């Protein structure tokens, strides 16, 4: 077959460089956007969405259904897999030895395991609604407490990394695209493509070796000084930032490459457009041309990538946080996996899922604001 017919296929996804990092194979478009933009060739019965409802209702609905599906999956998954939560209590060495059927039934009734699955599910949902995530087996604490304590650290780390990597990759991307083919462009591409192939944990460990062990500039672990008592809030902020530096750098580098390439490619694709020639002919300054006319076009795919990354930053942080023993959600996940602490794992999973979904939803809603073409639909 002649490959040129492939050009008729939706190029939105294939036209991005193949992505191999944790950001894995995502196209630069948000979910519903791609759907709307897929070419609807003259296929006779291609169903179109009715226009009566505002488009964002559909998006919000999709996200609500996903959230429900995720929460339900968390409940049913362990129950569908083989295994019995009371089996280990049949072992005489366990703390709560079950010696006969009556005792077993009593324990099962205590934990609500004798009820039908559907009523267990209902209890689970109503517990979740009240912020009840269960009891962590390994930490012997309510899961909700642990989450509450660790969420701010993760938000600080991932939020900081997202903001920093966005600023860096946007400016680097616009500059590289503007001077495409020059030395700066080529070297940026080589450096960033290589760092993208390095797993985050390896990057983090390399930074740890370099700047905390060989040249001990930064602390090796933790989110702040142990047993710290600060004289002033300024000192507290300083200490926290000091501990944040290395993990933040590791995560930022991991997140920057993807967005850089997207911005660069979009900027290049605008360079030959008529409006660029016109703007140049009008005598606009180079800065205006670069950012207002060319860079602004890159904003759309950029914001989309940002939304997808927000999810991956939150879930990618286990690696970085583990290396630096950072007190966030990520290292809690690692610990929960190690201890096979399912209630804790589920709590982490649900809170991460909610964060990811909120970030993606926010991006999809912003997208309509940014792109008049989407708004019109």
């Amino acid at each position: 077959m002649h490959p040129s017919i492939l050009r008729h296929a939706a190029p939105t996804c294939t036209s991005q460089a193949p992505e191999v990092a944790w950001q894995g194979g995502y196209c630069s478009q948000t979910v519903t956007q791609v759907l709307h933009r897929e070419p609807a060739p003259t296929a006779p019965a291609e169903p179109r969405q009715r226009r009566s409802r505002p488009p964002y209702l559909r998006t919000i609905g999709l996200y609500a259904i996903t959230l429900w599906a995720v929460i339900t999956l968390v409940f049913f998954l362990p129950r569908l897999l083989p295994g019995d939560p009371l089996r280990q209590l049949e072992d005489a060495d366990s703390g709560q030895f079950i010696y006969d059927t009556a005792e077993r039934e009593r324990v099962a009734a205590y934990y609500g395991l004798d009820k039908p699955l559907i009523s267990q599910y209902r209890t689970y949902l109503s517990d979740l609604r009240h912020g009840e995530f269960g009891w962590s087996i390994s930490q012997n604490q309510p899961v909700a407490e642990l989450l509450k304590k660790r969420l701010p650290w993760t938000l600080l780390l991932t939020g900081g990394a997202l903001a920093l990597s966005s600023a860096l990759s946007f400016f680097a991307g616009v500059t590289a695209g503007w001077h495409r083919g020059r030395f700066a462009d080529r070297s940026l591409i080589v450096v960033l493509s290589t760092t993208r192939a390095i797993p985050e944990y390896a990057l983090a460990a390399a930074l740890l070796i370099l700047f905390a062990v060989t040249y001990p500039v930064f602390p090796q672990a933790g989110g702040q000084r142990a047993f710290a008592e600060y004289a002033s809030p300024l000192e507290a902020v300083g200490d926290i930032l000091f501990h944040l530096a290395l993990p933040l750098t590791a995560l930022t580098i991991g997140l920057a490459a993807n967005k850089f390439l997207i911005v660069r490619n979009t900027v290049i694709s605008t360079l030959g457009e008529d409006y660029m020639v016109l703007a140049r002919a009008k005598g606009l300054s180079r800065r205006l041309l670069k950012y207002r006319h060319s860079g602004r076009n890159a904003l759309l795919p950029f914001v989309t990538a940002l939304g997808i990354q927000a999810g991956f930053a939150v879930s990618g942080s286990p690696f970085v946080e583990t290396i630096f023993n950072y007190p966030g959600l990520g290292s809690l996940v690692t610990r929960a996996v190690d201890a096979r602490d399912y209630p804790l794992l589920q709590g982490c999973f649900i809170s991460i899922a909610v964060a990811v979904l909120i970030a993606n939803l926010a991006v999809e809603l912003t997208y309509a604001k940014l792109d008049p073409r989407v708004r019109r639909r």
Partner: protein
Amino acid sequence: MTATVARHPGPPPTSPPRGIHVAGIIGGAIMGFYFVLLLFGSQLAPFRATELAGQSLASPSGTNRLGTNLIGQDILSQLILGARASLLVALLAGVGTVLLGGIVGILAGWFPGWPDAVMMRVTDLVLIVPKLPLLLLIGALTGGSVVGLSLVISLLFWPNAARILRSQVLSLRTRTHVRAATGFGAGTWHQLRRHILPDLTLLSIAEFIPAAGRAVSLQAGLAFLGIGDPTLPSWGSMIRDAVAFRAVFITDAWKWWFAPPVIALVGLTVGITLLGTAAERRLSPRLARHTR
């Protein structure tokens, strides 16, 4: 600056670049090396992966060319044998992803109306599910054997392939030869087999490569977090062991314990990316213009 502008516009090249690109050659060579490790790993490795092959934390020497880890296992052997976990998951998950995506995409593209609508809604749903945490949870619950992990990865990551293959089917359906075949009364099965599937082969390969690359980093990441087949050595778990022994960074041990698996992983990822770039170049000339 005018020169750049003047050079840029112009009709897109009408035919994709012929021949094999440099990226493809390098990528192919790298992948060939890894496949040798996969196929002949057990002959090449001087020791078995779990065998105690020397002193604890021995530095590289004649018997242990890359030294040993904390419990005295040979690092080089683990490194060679670790290729198996990465490559098997890459192959299986890559095939699984494209297969699942292909089934959904082709059916959705071929049957418009409610089957298409239902399948595309499901695709949207799976696309926005937070995947890494779910993978962690399922992996922790099921243990994470090679086959199980590949299955879960395929089940979570098929929507991209489904999307692209669906739009290709939609476009193919309007081509003259397919319409002519429909006119002659060709059945669905015949149409799919003779006219649709052959035209999807190249696109499927283009989808397979990034899917395989993603599977490599997912497998290594999960192994790093402690989810994986404990009997199978893998680069992710080597990194995990090295990092768990925190003194590895203070001594020189990281040079032969921590660095080699990282380099192996990066090499594999780069190899797959290069192959993917070469494939993209063949498939989509529009992009080749941009990334040149």
